[in-house]
């Protein structure tokens, strides 16, 4: 309760703010009729406009109700993180993980920015999927993981994160479950490629995937990952626009080597918490690392990754070396 109150107090100053940046665009997300019509053509982002419409219908227009809903959603996600952590960590570690997820300054961009509502909803779907798989409800987990498509297209990586989490926590699925899950991955991948082709894979907004692009994104991701500890002592490093001009050709090789080394080291040490966090981060952001989207990497893209970072932080501080 103390941590919940601290979270509300921490964000209280932003609740009465105005719409910022893309908030002016997103609240006109065509209402629920437009959202449903869009969902027939392209399933992504059905839930965010529905929630925005509901907020407006209940509490009126304006940024404050939307920001309050964002904060409430973040608190819900924190509770789910705590529930997820409970069997994996000590009681104190689970509470700490939940509180850290709530309070970490890196989350501010996701919580205070109304246009980040898709990230919040996608994280909820993912957390529900992880909780379901923790209880052995693989079918429910699949439904929840696929439901992330209705929040934000690129968070469909949840269908990779769920089996990753199951494997790391020592679950062993039946052949039927593995085959069904793999088949759904293939179908989702085909559907995704068709949708990308329909939108013009080689059009002005998208280029072809390349190792150089992925290496550049990995460099940016590495810098953002460092913000997790850095924000505690140097919060001025947090910004909506990071300066990526240091990512030049000479940097790409060492960056790639560093990430590969991290994965190999994690494998050699039998995937401790930090190793799992590295793998989780790469899988969670895999589509952004591969697809040449001009959006770039921002702090709110790390919201899903911060789930495991919070758990790992709780594990290391309150001593649970592996699950």
């Amino acid at each position: 309760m103390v941590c919940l109150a601290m979270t509300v107090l921490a964000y209280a100053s932003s609740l009465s703010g105005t719409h910022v940046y893309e908030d002016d665009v997103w609240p006109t997300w065509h209402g629920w009729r437009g959202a449903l019509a869009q969902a027939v053509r392209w399933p992504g982002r059905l839930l965010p406009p529905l929630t925005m419409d509901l907020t407006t219908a209940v509490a009126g227009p304006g940024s404050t109700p939307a920001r309050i809903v964002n904060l409430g959603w973040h608190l819900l996600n924190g509770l789910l993180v705590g529930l997820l952590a409970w069997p994996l960590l000590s009681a104190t570690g689970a509470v700490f993980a939940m509180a850290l997820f709530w309070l970490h300054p890196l989350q501010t961009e996701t919580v205070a920015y109304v246009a980040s509502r898709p990230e919040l909803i996608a994280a909820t779907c993912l957390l529900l999927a992880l909780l379901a798989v923790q209880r052995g409800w693989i079918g429910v987990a699949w439904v929840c993981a696929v439901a992330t498509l209705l929040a934000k297209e690129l968070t469909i990586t949840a269908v990779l994160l769920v089996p990753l989490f199951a494997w790391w926590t020592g679950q062993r699925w039946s052949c039927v479950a593995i085959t069904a899950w793999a088949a759904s991955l293939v179908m989702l991948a085909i559907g995704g490629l068709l949708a990308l082709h329909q939108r013009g894979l080689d059009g002005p907004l998208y280029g072809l995937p390349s190792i150089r692009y992925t290496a550049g994104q990995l460099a940016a991701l590495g810098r953002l990952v460092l913000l997790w500890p850095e924000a505690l002592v140097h919060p001025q490093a947090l910004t909506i626009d990071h300066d990526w001009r240091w990512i030049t050709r000479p940097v790409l090789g060492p960056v790639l080597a560093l990430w590969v080394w991290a994965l190999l080291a994690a494998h050699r040490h039998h995937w401790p918490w930090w190793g799992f966090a590295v793998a989780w981060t790469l899988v969670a952001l895999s589509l952004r690392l591969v697809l040449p989207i001009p959006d770039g990497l921002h702090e709110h893209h790390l919201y899903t990754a911060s789930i495991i970072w919070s758990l790992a932080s709780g594990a290391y501080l309150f001593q649970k070396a592996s699950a």
Partner: protein
Amino acid sequence: MRAFVGALILSLCAWHTHHRAEDWRSDEALWSAARRTAPALARPAFNLGVALVKEARWEDATIQFLAAIQLYAAPSAWFDMQRHAGQGLALVDTLGSPVCDRPEVSPWCVWR
């Protein structure tokens, strides 16, 4: 000891989150903070200029649009900073003070 460290970390987080959340109160606060963190980037300057136009702070907006033009190193296929910032300057000239008469501004004013 661990409990103390945990409480310290959470307190630090809460404090920094509170201050960071204040940056998200308005476009001006957000992009001013971005300008402080990344002063060599053009986009925060441009967006700060847009925010200042909304607040009718014409002189400050002009400064930011000119900064955005000067900071933008290379033309982009999907965002022409010179054109957009130039349109911003033209907007300031139309709605506020006649800045496009100034020698340092006139080359950049872009009219529709």
